[in-house]
Structures are given as structure tokens and as C-alpha cells.
């Protein structure tokens, strides 16, 4: 008896108060919709096979169809023109013949459909034919679809919030699977036929309005996209796509014949690209190594000569896993501007070492035309990173864009990396554990512009392969740009490789700096290729500066700064200078233009290869330094591994690096300012090794980024150093403030402490706890 009473109470608890109005409540549907529909319902399930016309009792009203704990199967059509309604159920399955819609047509805006579902989730089964029976709120102004499902969401047909007139914009689609409140996990899967997918677009490419927004969130689960998602817009620009998953995000390939995969392009009259953002707690990966095109591209202006639309933004971040885009399918990352517009921005990052970032797609954020400037591409990788099909941020009159590529591991490039500009060349910066350039890297100013700058800094080796080229040359009357390649290990320029910082036809040459073993490490510089910074200026001075332990110019090497009246080549070998027969080291040659060599006392001076030949004043011998900070001396390059600690070594374990003495015979930086770890380095033993792994890294972790509050954390990471930083409160923990305090005005003219080297904090747990 009591059990039935409790069960009845439970049913009442699950079922909300019902609206008395007809055709606006679940009870009406279950009662047969006044004869217009057929619903077969039990206490746990409800199957609707005919038409349900949503009719709120008052115009503009909202209907809530609460089926309680029932699993609802929809085989008929359910909806009403421009209506706003909500379906609440344990599960909703829409069969092939079923449909949900709140279409507004061309005369009214789309309505609003809200689906609040339990752990059974949402399943939109494939329609009987392509594009049939969409989940549809399109209208004169796209409507809104909100799905909050505790369980998985499977979409196998069109879901659309498109605009249907040229003067209205796309609507909103917001789908959440999983529930942080009760701890339910959910994943989102998008499949379907060609032409289907998720859409919040404008009516046509000539529309004056913008695309809508699509947001997919998988709490505790993953997102798998195997069909297109589009927020293409008109003159107002593309819309926004947001993908957030606690687990992985899979970026697949849309059905055959579909070019666009994730698209936030702008069209119309100079529409700008929108934004595409994805954040995965796990990894971001293609489906079977294939990925479709991801684009947020701007459009050209209708009136010739006007500036086109700018490129949009694409942000891809994996918190604990790798990022893999391509190489199969139709992979593309594009945030190009329209003709005359500027390029957009593409950011690629992951947060946990040693996960890699592998981009097998062309990456472009170009700008063109008189005003167009290149965009920006930023990489922030905690492991290795590779780009096999190039990066292009070239620009027009506003110059090349910016490339800021950072990785703790090795950055490998195969295709062309370009930041050229018909204004000035742009800026390219690599900072990595090591660097392997297998294709051209160019920041050329053309046709009458200054070359840009290429800076490459690595803790380890840098290799410019035979297919490699670094070009920051200029044209016209402009000075050459800058090429700065500095590695802590060996730096190697292959025989067919070229480094070019030439000035224009009447300009001075630029600057070239090649350094190995920087700042005091063992590292040799080998040049077999053609390195030149030629100019024709009487005032400017092209300079090529080479520094390393052993500098070796092979038989095919050319070092050329001929032209400028004050040009010079400066070579500083900390151990040895080797110039093979056939190598050429040449500069203009006069009293102010010389080849200058600095060597350790007693080192041999190469006899040939210099033009003009080395004079007595061109060679300088210096003693070895005995401590850091000394002037007028060379830092020695002792043999690491001979078990003798020689300056600047701080340890030597005989070629067996360990946790406290690395492969370059340097004691690890143990004072990590982390209050949670011991700072003393000891002789590694089994007992000490395990806890020391983290507290005494062979090389300090990246100092680039400050501790950052991860979106999915259980609690803030422990402070690794006494940074005066405000951290966000842990979700669900902090008592809410009772009253609002208006923000204080921004402080001005405060003199802060000097920046210190920053360390990345340990990752916190990714998921929020269930509600206590």
C-alpha cells in the first residue's frame, strides 16, 4: 500500500503542474489532442504518431509539454508557426517521419523550441529523405533551439535556425548534453546526409545580416562532428560556433560533396568572418585522420576598391590531449580576409605536456589589397608541433601578419611559412625546444617594401634543411629585414638552404644573426648553404653575425654581405673556426667593411675563404671566461661527459644525464619557487628520484604563461610561487556574495614588480564535482 503511495507521490513529483489550456500541455497530447493526433502513452513511455499543433492560450505565450519520466517517441509533426514551447521528458526520439518545428516563414521570426530531457537524451533519427523533416525554427529572423539533455544527443538530420529573409539574421542553437548538477555525462554526435547538419545561417550570401550562433557543450562527454556546422552570414558577418567538451572533440569529414565543415564565413558586402572556438578536456582529433574545412573567412566588398571583410577567429584548445587536424579529408584552417580586408586570427594550443599538435592542413589568415594586412597565427604547444602544409599570414598594403609559434617540444615545418606583405614583411617568431624548418620561411616586403623579421629561438637544435629558406628581403629602396636564429644546441644550415636579408635595389642589407650554444651551452654552428644580406647603401650596414662553439663553414657555404659601404661579417667561435675549401665569406671590403673573427687564444686562424682576406686587425683573440658576466672573453665549450666539471658546466655525470644534471652538464633549476616541493637537489637515488621528478625538472617548464584557471577544474591549482594573482573561485564551493560591490576604477601609474619567470601550474582535475 505504502509502496503504491510512494510511487504515486514520485510520479506527482516528476510531473509538474499542468496548464489547464488545451493543446498546450502534455496531458492534452496524451489525451489525444482533441482528436487531431494520436498518442499512445503509458506511465513510462509515450508515442505520438500524428500531428500536434502547439497553440498557447494567449498570443505569444509559452507552452510546456511535460511528459515527466516518460520516454517520448515522435512519429508525427509537433510544432506551430513561430511558437515558443518546451518539451520535457526522460528521453525524446524523433523517428524518420517525425518532426519538430516552430518555423516563422518569411513573414514572422522563427519560434523557440526548448527540449529539457533526462538521461535518455535526444535522438533525431535520419529522416526518410535528405533534408526532410528538420528540427526547424527558421524564419524572418532565425529562432532559437535550446536542448538541455542529461544524456547523449544524437543528431542525424538537419537542425536549423536559419534566417529566411535577406534582412534578418540567423538564430541560435544551443545544445548541452550531460548535466553538471546531477553529474550526468553526455556526448553529442552529429551525422546525417549531405546538405544536412547544424545551420544558423542567413538566407543567402547577399543578405545584409549576420549568421547566428551554435553552441555545443558535452558535460562529461565528447563531441563527434561528422557533418557540417554553419553560421554563414551576410554583410554583418559570420556567426559563432562554440564547441566545448570535457572529453574529446572529433572533427570528422562531412558527407561526400560537402565542402564546408565548420563555417563562419561572412558574405554580402564585405562581411567579416565570424568565430569558431573549440575547447576539449581531452584531445581534438580528426575522424580516421580526416578533417573537413574549418573556415571563418571574410568576403570582398561589392564596390571595387572598398575594403573587404576581415577574417574571423578560430581557436582550438585541447586541455590534456593532442590536437590533430588532417591530413586526410579536406583539411583547412582559414581565417582569410576578403579582398582589401585583413586576415583574422588562428590560435592553436594545448595545456598538458607532452601532447603534440599536428596540423596537416594549410593554415591561412591572409589579407590582400591596398589596406589588407595579414592576420595572426599563434601556437602554444606543451609538446611537439608540426605543420606539414604551411602557414600563410601574408598581407597587402598593411603588411604581413604575425606568426607566434611556441612549443616546448620540437616545431617542424614542411610547407611554406609566409608573412610577406606588399606593405612591409611581417613578423615570424618561433620559440621551441628544437626547430626543424623543412620549407621556406618568408617575410618578404614586395614590391616596394621593407622585409620583415624572422626570429627563431630554441633550447636545443635548429635545422634548416635543404628545402629550407629564410627570407626577410626587401624591394625598392628599402633596407633588408632581420633574421635571427639562435639555438641552445647545434644550428645547421643545409647545403641548398638560403638565408636572405637583402635590401632592395637601392637599400641597405639587413641583419643576420646565427647563434649556436646560446647563451653558454655547447652547440656548434654548421653552415653549408647560402647566407646573404646584400645591399647598396652608403649609410646602412648589413651585418652577418655568427657565434658558436665550433663554427664550420662547409665547401658550399656562402656568407655574403657585399654592397653596403659599412657591411661586415662577424664570426665568434668559442672553440674553433673551420672554413672548408670552397667556402666564401665575403663583404664589401674597405676600411669600414671587414670580415671580423674572434677566437680563443691559441686557436688556428683559417687561411682562406675570406674576401677581403683577414688582416691583422680583423682577428681578435680572447681568453676564456671563468665566470658568467665577464667581458672581453669567450665562454668556453668544454666536453660534457668527461666527468670533470669545467666552467660553464655545473655538473658532469659522465654522459649519463639524470634528474639533477642534464645532457648539457647543467644542474637543473631546482629552486622552482614552488612552495609545494623541496628545492634541494641531491644525488639521485631511488628514494629521491621519484618525488624529485617533478620538483627538479631537467629543464624548467615554459615560463610563457601564467597559471591559468582551467575551465573544468575541481579546485584551483596550488600556488607554485607567490604570485600576487587573483584566482577564480572554485565552482560550487564559494558562498555567493551577499551584495554587489561596484568595480574600483582601474589603477593608474602603478609601478609593479619586475616580471619573473613564470611556470605553468600542475593541471587540476578537469571535471566539476557533482552537486554536494
Amino acid at each position: 500500500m505504502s509502496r503504491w503511495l510512494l510511487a504515486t507521490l514520485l510520479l506527482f513529483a516528476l510531473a509538474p503542474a499542468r496548464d489547464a489550456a488545451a493543446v498546450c500541455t502534455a496531458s492534452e497530447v496524451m489525451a489525444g489532442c482533441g482528436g487531431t493526433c494520436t498518442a499512445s502513452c503509458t506511465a513510462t513511455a509515450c508515442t505520438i504518431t500524428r500531428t500536434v499543433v502547439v497553440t498557447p492560450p494567449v498570443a505569444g505565450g509559452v507552452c510546456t509539454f511535460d511528459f515527466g519520466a516518460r520516454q517520448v517517441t515522435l512519429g508525427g509533426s509537433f510544432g506551430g508557426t513561430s511558437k515558443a514551447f518546451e518539451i520535457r521528458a526522460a528521453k525524446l526520439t524523433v523517428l524518420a517521419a517525425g518532426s519538430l518545428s516552430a518555423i516563422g516563414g518569411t513573414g514572422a521570426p522563427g519560434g523557440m523550441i526548448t527540449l529539457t530531457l533526462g538521461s535518455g537524451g535526444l535522438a533525431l533519427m535520419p529522416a526518410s529523405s535528405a533534408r526532410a523533416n528538420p528540427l526547424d525554427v527558421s524564419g524572418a529572423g532565425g529562432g532559437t533551439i535550446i536542448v538541455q539533455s542529461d544524456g547523449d544527443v544524437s543528431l542525424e538530420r538537419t537542425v536549423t535556425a536559419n534566417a529566411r529573409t535577406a534582412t534578418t539574421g540567423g538564430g541560435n542553437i544551443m545544445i548541452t548534453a550531460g548535466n553538471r548538477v546531477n553529474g550526468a555525462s553526455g556526448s553529442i554526435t552529429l551525422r546525417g546526409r549531405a546538405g544536412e547538419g547544424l545551420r544558423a545561417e542567413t538566407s543567402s550570401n547577399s543578405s545584409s545580416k549576420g549568421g547566428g550562433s551554435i553552441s555545443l557543450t558535452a558535460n562529461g562527454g565528447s563531441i563527434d562532428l561528422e557533418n557540417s556546422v554553419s553560421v554563414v552570414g551576410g554583410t554583418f558577418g559570420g556567426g559563432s560556433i562554440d564547441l566545448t567538451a570535457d572529453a574529446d572533440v572529433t572533427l570528422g569529414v562531412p558527407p561526400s560533396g560537402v565542402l564546408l565543415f565548420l563555417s563562419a564565413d561572412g558574405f554580402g558586402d564585405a562581411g567579416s568572418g565570424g568565430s569558431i572556438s573549440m575547447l576539449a578536456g581531452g584531445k581534438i582529433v580528426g575522424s580516421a585522420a580526416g578533417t573537413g574545412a574549418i573556415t571563418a573567412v571574410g568576403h570582398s566588398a561589392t564596390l571595387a576598391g572598398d575594403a573587404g571583410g576581415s577574417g574571423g577567429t578560430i581557436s582550438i584548445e585541447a586541455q590534456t590531449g593532442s590536437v590533430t587536424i588532417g591530413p586526410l579529408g579536406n583539411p583547412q584552417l582559414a581565417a582569410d580576409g576578403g579582398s582589401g580586408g585583413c586576415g583574422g586570427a588562428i590560435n592553436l594550443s594545448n595545456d598538458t605536456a607532452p601532447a603534440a599538435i599536428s596540423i596537416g592542413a594549410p593554415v591561412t589568415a591572409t589579407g590582400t589589397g591596398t589596406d589588407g594586412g595579414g592576420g595572426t597565427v599563434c601556437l602554444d604547444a606543451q609538446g611537439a608541433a608540426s605543420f606539414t602544409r604551411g602557414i600563410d599570414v601574408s598581407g597587402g598594403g598593411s603588411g604581413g601578419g604575425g606568426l607566434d609559434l611556441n612549443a616546448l617540444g620540437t616545431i617542424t615545418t614542411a610547407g611554406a611559412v609566409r608573412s610577406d606583405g606588399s606593405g612591409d614583411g611581417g613578423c615570424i617568431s618561433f620559440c621551441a625546444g628544437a626547430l626543424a624548418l623543412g620549407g621556406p620561411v618568408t617575410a618578404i616586403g614586395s614590391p616596394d617594401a621593407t622585409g620583415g623579421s624572422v626570429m627563431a629561438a630554441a633550447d636545443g637544435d635548429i635545422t634548416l634543411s635543404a628545402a629550407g629558406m629564410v627570407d626577410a628581403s626587401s624591394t625598392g629602396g628599402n633596407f633588408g629585414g632581420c633574421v635571427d636564429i639562435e639555438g641552445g644546441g647545434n644550428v645547421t644550415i643545409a647545403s641548398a638552404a638560403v638565408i636572405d636579408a637583402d635590401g632592395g635595389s637601392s637599400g641597405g642589407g639587413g641583419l643576420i644573426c646565427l647563434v649556436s650554444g646560446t647563451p653558454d651551452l655547447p652547440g656548434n654552428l654548421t653552415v653549408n648553404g647560402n647566407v646573404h644580406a646584400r645591399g647598396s647603401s652608403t649609410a646602412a650596414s648589413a651585418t652577418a653575425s655568427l657565434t658558436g662553439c665550433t663554427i664550420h663553414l662547409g665547401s658550399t657555404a656562402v656568407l655574403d654581405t657585399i654592397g653596403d659601404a659599412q657591411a661586415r661579417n662577424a664570426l665568434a667561435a668559442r672553440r674553433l673556426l673551420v672554413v672548408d675549401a670552397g667556402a666564401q665569406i665575403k663583404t664589401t671590403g674597405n676600411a669600414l667593411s671587414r670580415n671580423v673573427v674572434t677566437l680563443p687564444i691559441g686557436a688556428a686562424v683559417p687561411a682562406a675563404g675570406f674576401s677581403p682576406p683577414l688582416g691583422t686587425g680583423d682577428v681578435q683573440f680572447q681568453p676564456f671566461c671563468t665566470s658568467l658576466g665577464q667581458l672581453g672573453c669567450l665562454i668556453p665549450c668544454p666536453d660534457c661527459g668527461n666527468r670533470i666539471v669545467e666552467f660553464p658546466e655545473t655538473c658532469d655525470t659522465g654522459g649519463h644525464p639524470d634528474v639533477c644534471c642534464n645532457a648539457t652538464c647543467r644542474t637543473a633549476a631546482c629552486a622552482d619557487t614552488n612552495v609545494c616541493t623541496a628545492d634541494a637537489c641531491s644525488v639521485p637515488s631511488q628514494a629521491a628520484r621519484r618525488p624529485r621528478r617533478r620538483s627538479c625538472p631537467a629543464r624548467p617548464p615554459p615560463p610563457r604563461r601564467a597559471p591559468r584557471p582551467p575551465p573544468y577544474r575541481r579546485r584551483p591549482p596550488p600556488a607554485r610561487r607567490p604570485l600576487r594573482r587573483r584566482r577564480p573561485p572554485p565552482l560550487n564551493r564559494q558562498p555567493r556574495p551577499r551584495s554587489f560591490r561596484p568595480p574600483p576604477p582601474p589603477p593608474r601609474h602603478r609601478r609593479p614588480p619586475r616580471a619573473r619567470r613564470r611556470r605553468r601550474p600542475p593541471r587540476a582535475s578537469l571535471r566539476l564535482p557533482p552537486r554536494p
Partner: protein
Amino acid sequence: MRTGPGTHPCARRGLWLLLALGLVLVAGRAAAMHRCGDDVDGKSVACACGDLLVSSRTLGAADAVTTSRCAGNGLVVAASGPITLDLGGRTVEGHGQGVGVLVVRGTLSLVGPGSVERFETGVRAEGEARLASVVAVRLAGHRLDGLVARGDGYSIQGSVAEGNGRDGFALAGSGYALDGNRASGNGRYGFELVGMGAHVGGGIGNDARANGMDGFWLLGGMHQVVGATATANGGHGVFAAVTHTLFAGVEADANGRSGLVASGGGLVVRDSTATGNRTFGIWVMGPGVEDGGGNHGVDNAGLMGPSGHGSEMMSTMMAPLVQCRIGMMGECR
């Protein structure tokens, strides 16, 4: 076979578990959606979580959306025209999912003082005229962004975005303005500003501090950045890939990378300072860049690379440019 509840302890325990499960399910689900506002078919209707705000409203104690934490969205603005949501000094709070205030139709003016906290996104208003203004609102503790807006001509004033997992303010569009705002302790950017013709500051300026990456991140063109303070951010103080933009009165100190980095054509920089940044101070490149004077860089370390050593080229051939560089080889005036 009929069994009474008192006959078998396991059956009784199962029923209690079923009841508890049911209550959990009910608790985890958002409340049914209703319309709310000061004028809903001529009546004033209080707002609860997930409701559609169809007319202006000043939130008060009667509004359940301010007294209970929302399982999904806070309020969904679906109005036929401009409306004002006055938070009335109260807080709308979520559970780390959904949007605190989601604007899908109409044009919202969001008025503080008041707070929107702990949703996935605090306020989201995307569309040509979805947002008119946000004044004196605190957006805190959201899993992703504090405020996401895309549109024309809106303004953000006197507001705070702090402790959000991604961006504090993620703004896009054209001709929008922001002044007197602060973004602190956000996971990525304090201010992400995209589009054309943004008026950033001009009055008391905006402040970005202790954000995980850049304090201000700008893209597009024709912006005016006047009076921006960026302190102790993990990335650059100010990063901009923009054209035809003015930077004036920027103060970028103690940031994990450079103070002010900007590239593009037609940039003007004046009266700006960069102190104690880890990499460079002021670094502005591109065709036609102009030094308006009054720019200074002090004590910037010039460190690069994962291990943070300095560039020999920068420290020898171009040493002064570590502190302040405007144009390819231009020291600051």
C-alpha cells in the same frame, strides 16, 4: 503477488532509493519555462531560472532567479524590442552550465549593480542589435567567458569580469565602446576585442590584470585604445593585430611576455609605458606606424624561448629596441 511494504526490507529500501533518485532527477532539471517581466500581458511576473524575459524587469526578492541556483540558463531574453534588465543589486547564479543571461531576441540593456556568476557563460548577446549596454555588472566564476557580445554600437561600462575560465570580455562587432571595466584572473584573455572601430577606454580606461594569457587581445581595425592598464598577465599586456589604430596611455607592466605588441598598418602609439615585462616593452611594427611621443620602456627583460634566455641579436645589435621599438628599426622618441 502482492507484497506489502512492510514485509520485505529490501523492497522498502528500493522504494526509498527510487524516491531519492526521482528527487535528484527533479533537482537536476531546469524548471519549466515561463514568460516573465514587468509587462507580461499587462501583468508583472517574477522571473525564475530558465524563464523568457519578454519585457523590462528590475529583479528583486520575488524573483526566484536571484534566490536559487539555476540548473540551466538563467534568463533568456526574448523580447520584441528594447528592454532593460536591472539586476537590482542581486545575483543570478548558475551551476557551471548554461548562460546566465542569453539574448535571443530584442535588445538588452543590462543594468547593475548586480552579479551574474558561475554559469558556463555569463552573458551572451550575439546579433546586430542584441545588446545595447552593460553597466556596473560583475561577471564571475563562469566556466568559459564572462561576457560574449557581438553587434553594433553597444557599450560596456563599469563592469568586472573575474575568475572566468576563458575570457573575461569577448566582444566583437563594430563601433562598440567599453570604459571603466576590469578583467582579472580570467583563464585566457581579459579583453578579447574583435571587429572594427572599437572605442576602448577614453574615460578612466580599462584594466586587465592577472589573466592567464594576454590582458587585451585585439583584432581588426580602426580601434582607439585610450587608457588601458595591463598588469601581471601571463601573456602580453596588450596584443594587437590591427590596422589604423591608436594606442594612447597604455600602461603595461610585469606581464609574462611583452608589454604592448602591435602589428599592422597605420598604427599610432603615444604616451604609453611598458615596465618590467619579461620579453619586450613596446613593440609596434608595420607600414606607416607612427610614434606619437611619450612612449617609454623600462626594465623589460628581453627574454625569449622556453628557457627564457635573451636573444643575442636583440641584446647586441638592437639593444635599445628591447625596451621600445616602433617601426622596423625605430627607437621610441
